[in-house]
């Protein structure tokens, strides 16, 4: 109890420091890599704003959550291109479909629970089936929504979106990848779902040779004993876990999969062939998400033992993001323990 209170306080202190930093730096958009932690929803809002001139047909839709989804950043700069649809997500998705049919590139925003959950059938029938150029930017995904609890912690969106034919599904791990994913979505012609988080996460992709491509994963740490495939905020946990495992003599390879669909099968197969054991880590149900996608690939092409870490067919609960990640074993320590038990 004491420790979890302390970690909550630490997070609070860090976020206060972060926001004061942000206020100080007016030209912050280009200096995100300097900032230690940032929520990918914030990256999303910044990217929309930064790309607005380059993509004049970009319009942004929200359902009364512009402050939370951070599309408010775009709204402030381009009020005429931001459409608040009110609390009506199903209609919002249909309106986006119509907008795309008259030449706009709509980015639809809401919490993952409502964008992928409530409006699932609209996404399937009004966007997926006609294969329209609609982008869905879903924020507040997974358990790191935190205090709002299970009704708002969407652990099913990747599964739902993966089942729609022709849908690209992405889950960026940090600020840099989130912004790259938004650009890639705008350059791509067709439906795209991108999942963003609420909680601030460390920047991990600030490397000079960083390149982003839809459908391409990255080996972020080379190893030979076990492959840890992670997505979104869990990439950081996986990297942390790999360090802990190294101390125990286990050399883990870590793969960052941003695009869950289409999956970078080549990269996963090559790593699985090398290590012979695969662990998947995601802030999502172990049913239907990254873990399932990896198993779909391996079971057909290279049967390999797999351990899926994530939400084990259960709902989340209220608590701080850090406390929840720890409780459900998705922090570095938890992932390391699970990997150790598996190998």
């Amino acid at each position, binding site marked *: 109890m004491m420790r979890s209170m302390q970690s909550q306080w630490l997070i609070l202190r860090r976020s206060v420091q972060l926001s004061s930093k942000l206020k100080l730096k007016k030209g912050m958009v280009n200096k995100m890599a300097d900032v230690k932690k940032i929520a990918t929803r914030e990256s999303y809002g910044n990217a929309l704003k930064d790309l607005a001139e380059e993509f004049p047909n970009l319009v942004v839709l929200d359902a009364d959550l512009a402050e939370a989804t951070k599309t408010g950043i775009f709204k402030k700069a381009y009020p005429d291109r931001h459409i608040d649809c*009110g609390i009506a997500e199903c209609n919002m998705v249909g*309106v986006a479909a119509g907008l795309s*049919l*008259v*030449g*706009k590139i709509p980015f639809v925003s809401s919490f993952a629970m409502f964008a992928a959950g409530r409006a699932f059938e609209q996404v399937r029938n009004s966007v997926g089936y*006609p294969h329209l150029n609609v982008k869905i930017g879903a924020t507040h995904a997974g358990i790191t929504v935190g205090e709002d609890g299970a009704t708002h912690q969407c652990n099913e969106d990747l599964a739902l979106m993966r089942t729609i034919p022709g849908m690209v599904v992405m889950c960026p791990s940090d600020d840099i990848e989130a912004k790259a994913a938004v650009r890639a979505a705008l350059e791509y012609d067709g439906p795209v779902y991108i999942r963003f988080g609420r909680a601030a996460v460390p920047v991990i992709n600030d490397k000079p040779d960083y390149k982003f491509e839809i459908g391409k994963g990255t080996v972020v740490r080379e190893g030979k004993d076990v492959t840890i495939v992670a997505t979104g905020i869990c990439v950081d946990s996986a990297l942390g876990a790999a360090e802990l495992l190294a101390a125990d003599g286990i050399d883990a390879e870590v793969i960052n999969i941003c695009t869950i669909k289409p999956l970078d099968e080549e990269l996963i197969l090559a790593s699985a062939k090398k290590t012979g054991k695969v662990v998947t880590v995601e802030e999502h149900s172990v049913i239907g998400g990254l873990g399932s996608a990896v198993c779909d690939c391996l079971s057909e092409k290279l049967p390999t033992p797999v351990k899926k870490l994530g939400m084990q067919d259960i709902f989340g609960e209220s608590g701080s993001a850090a406390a929840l990640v720890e409780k459900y074993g998705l922090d570095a320590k938890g992932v390391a323990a699970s990997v150790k038990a598996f190998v």
Partner: protein
Amino acid sequence: MTNLELQRQANEVRKGIVTAVHSAKAGHPGGSLSAADVFTYLYFEEMNIDPKNPDKEDRDRFVLSKGHTAPGLYSTLANRGYFPVEDLKTLRKLGSYLQGHPCIHIPGVDMSSGSLGQGISAAVGMALGGKMSDKSFRVYTLLGDGEIQEGQVWEAAMFAGHRKLDNLCVIVDNNGLQIDGKIEDVCSPYPIDKKFEAFNFHVINCDAHDFDALRAAFNEAKATKGQPTAIIVKSVKGKGVSFMENNAGWHGKAPNDEEYAIAMADLEKIGAALQ
């Protein structure tokens, strides 16, 4: 077109509907026939379209929100020259482009539809996009009176009224019947006109089978500025086929060979009277 020409054309559309559904051995003749005059007026008189150039940018758009009445739309498009009338016989068959519900890949179809309540939102999005880009095209969408039981219809209506989309025309085909019976027995959407008024629409009530009334209504819609228009058309489900008229049983059923012969004889008789 004169009213007589429109009536003749609508009768051809009805023959196409009955023929397509009979050939498919499945489909929705009742609501297709009730809307046949509206389809005909839109595609032969009202909308700025070009069958030779189905995707021309400044065209008016149509979304069949009550997508199950695809036979009505397909027969109209075929008769208007988008594709051969003969192809209507391939409706719902494996390999045919004429899917059971409207599919965007069919020439002349502006939006896939069929899951009720969704088409109107797409139409609203098209109208909004037109406004944002200062385009002059208009957007039409046809809904069933049972369909308006879907909550999404009212999300879309609230949004369209709020955004003052006067380039949007919503048509509700009020034939009074849905699969399980009379709409007022299942879950009454009445009063339909007052509901749309409350959602800041300009509302017109009119007879679905009277071309003078349809002409006046669509002209009034075009002249209406600052708010979208809803035209509630009072129709007869199964209109034109004696045994299908006002019978909920013909919502989603195909006629057998004997029934098909009677239906076509009914329509031939109507056609002869229009000569």
